[in-house]
């Protein structure tokens, strides 16, 4: 980073690609077309360097050492909190809790918030298109508290039916959990409108942002949500790191999620007092290197510019949708008006798993399966789909490679 010069205005995808060393390789003798970005994105050199330089030069534990390295590590770690705050538009740095990712964030909210605020007769409302990680923690919570889980349906294009969603918002709806962008369908939900509706009914709202932050600018202040979850590995950062944004008054009132070091102010066998935010929710030694990598990923995305990324990906989405839909036997699964660059489809007579294997041998990496969204598969009457998902470094040529590979599958199974 820093060495790359990108002219203002033009999007130079080749320059972006040069920042991602993993993309310079062949698989099975074919250039790699990595189209599995909804599963995890690749990492730019700046992120890889941030992680390795931390271990090479400044490895130390944070918030506790009196020595030079520990002070440096603490300062670097806390600086990323400021970056993350600005990145999602939070008001206060103490509203950013570093965690493993979205899964841990939803579990934290379900347990620390949900368990002390829900009881029998209360309701949690989600949608059909949620990832399993925004379903199962609520099911566990409902089992523990006697609350009931409600599910807002989606239409044949994979959009939440807003009238149904609003009808399901009732007096007893305490928590609403909705995804910003669906990982299986690509749908961009009208989250702002959905949050406003939920808040009118007095519900606390969590938005699953796992698929959003590498592709669109997020502003939790404008969204007016109570919680927003981020998975670092889906936005160019290392695996095992992410964060939860939480509204300060709510986080303050919540009991801790896990007990341990760092989350306490003082401990005795008679009485332990908890640390202030955000440390109250960061028990134990965190993934320090991962957090530093996340900081570098945020820098990178800011430098390239999320608006330009979004425009580039929209072009790829239009191009890919048109190419893939034109292939005989293809059925698109997920055709919302507003979509992220995710194209899910099935191919007549050929199981997605077989499609995936043949695409793989052509150098095209996609996902074939249920995408941790089995209720979505059921809604569309399929066991699985093939999913091509794009990121800032993908090109039209890679879409062409995908198209050629799908045509090969058809030939193969004809």
């Amino acid at each position, binding site marked *: 980073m820093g060495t790359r010069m990108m002219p203002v205005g033009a999007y130079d995808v080749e320059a972006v690609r040069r920042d991602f060393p993993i993309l310079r390789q062949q698989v099975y003798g074919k250039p790699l077309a990595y189209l599995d970005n909804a599963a995890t994105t690749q990492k730019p050199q700046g992120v890889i360097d941030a992680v390795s330089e931390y271990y090479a030069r400044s490895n130390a534990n944070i918030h506790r050492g009196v020595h030079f390295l520990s002070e440096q590590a603490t300062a670097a770690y806390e600086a990323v909190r400021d970056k993350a705050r600005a990145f999602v538009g939070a008001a206060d740095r103490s509203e950013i809790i570093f965690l493993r990712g979205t899964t841990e964030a939803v579990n934290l909210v379900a347990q620390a918030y949900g368990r002390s605020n829900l009881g029998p007769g209360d309701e949690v409302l989600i949608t059909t298109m949620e990832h399993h990680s925004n379903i199962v923690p609520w099911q566990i919570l409902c089992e523990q508290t006697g609350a009931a889980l409600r599910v807002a349906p989606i239409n044949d294009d994979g959009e939440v039916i807003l009238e149904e969603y609003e009808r399901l918002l009732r007096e007893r709806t305490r928590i609403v959990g909705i995804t910003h962008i669906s990982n299986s369908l690509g749908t961009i939900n009208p989250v702002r409108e959905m949050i406003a509706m939920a808040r009118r009914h007095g519900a606390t709202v969590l938005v699953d942002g796992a698929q959003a932050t590498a592709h669109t600018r997020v502003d939790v202040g404008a969204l007016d949500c109570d919680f927003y979850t981020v998975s670092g590995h889906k936005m160019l950062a290392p695996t095992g790191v992410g964060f939860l944004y939480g509204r300060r008054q709510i986080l303050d009132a919540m009991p801790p999620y896990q007990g341990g070091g760092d989350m306490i102010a003082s401990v005795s066998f008679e009485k332990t007092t908890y640390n202030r935010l955000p440390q109250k929710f960061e028990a134990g030694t965190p993934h320090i290197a991962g957090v530093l990598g996340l900081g570098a990923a945020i820098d990178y995305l800011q430098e390239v510019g999320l608006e330009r990324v979004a425009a580039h990906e929209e072009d790829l989405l239009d191009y890919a949708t048109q190419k893939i839909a034109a292939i005989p036997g293809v059925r698109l699964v997920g055709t919302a008006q507003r979509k992220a660059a995710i194209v899910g489809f099935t191919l007549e007579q050929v*199981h997605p798993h077989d499609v995936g294997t043949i695409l793989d041998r052509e150098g095209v990496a996609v996902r074939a399966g249920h995408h941790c969204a089995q209720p979505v598969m059921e809604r569309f009457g399929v066991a699985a789909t093939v999913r091509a998902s794009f990121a800032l470094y993908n090109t039209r040529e890679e879409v062409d490679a995908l198209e050629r590979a799908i045509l090969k599958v058809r030939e193969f*199974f004809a």
Partner: protein
Amino acid sequence: MSELRDLYQEVVLDHGRHPHNFRHMDEASHQSVGFNPLCGDKLTLFLRYEDDVVQDVSFQGSGCAISTASASLLTDAIKGKSRAEVEELIAAFLDMLTAESPPDPERLGKLAVLSGVRDFPVRVKCATLSWRTLEAALGGTDEVTTE
């Protein structure tokens, strides 16, 4: 492409498209459901096993070409066999896909067409799903997953 041809041999594609014994069985003495949580595939295997002979065997469900062909070939291979013979076939089939040693055509007969799956580690579970389900059915277990 040649490894792909080894994986998807004509016989495999045929069984995948037109599986044998693909039907429900009302009078089954043994049955079990197999899941592959990785891809959401699911199949039910039905057996009518009497007088130490597999009198009839069938399956239903949705799956990829490999899992469907494997189940179809399974039904052809075990019909009329004794329990000991079936168990030997299960062992031979699982060995073919998971053991280090090269497959033994003597033990496998027609099932050897699936030996190409060895070169596609992520697909081994597709091929073994029906065989694990058969093991479960004979052992009296209603459900099995490949994980």
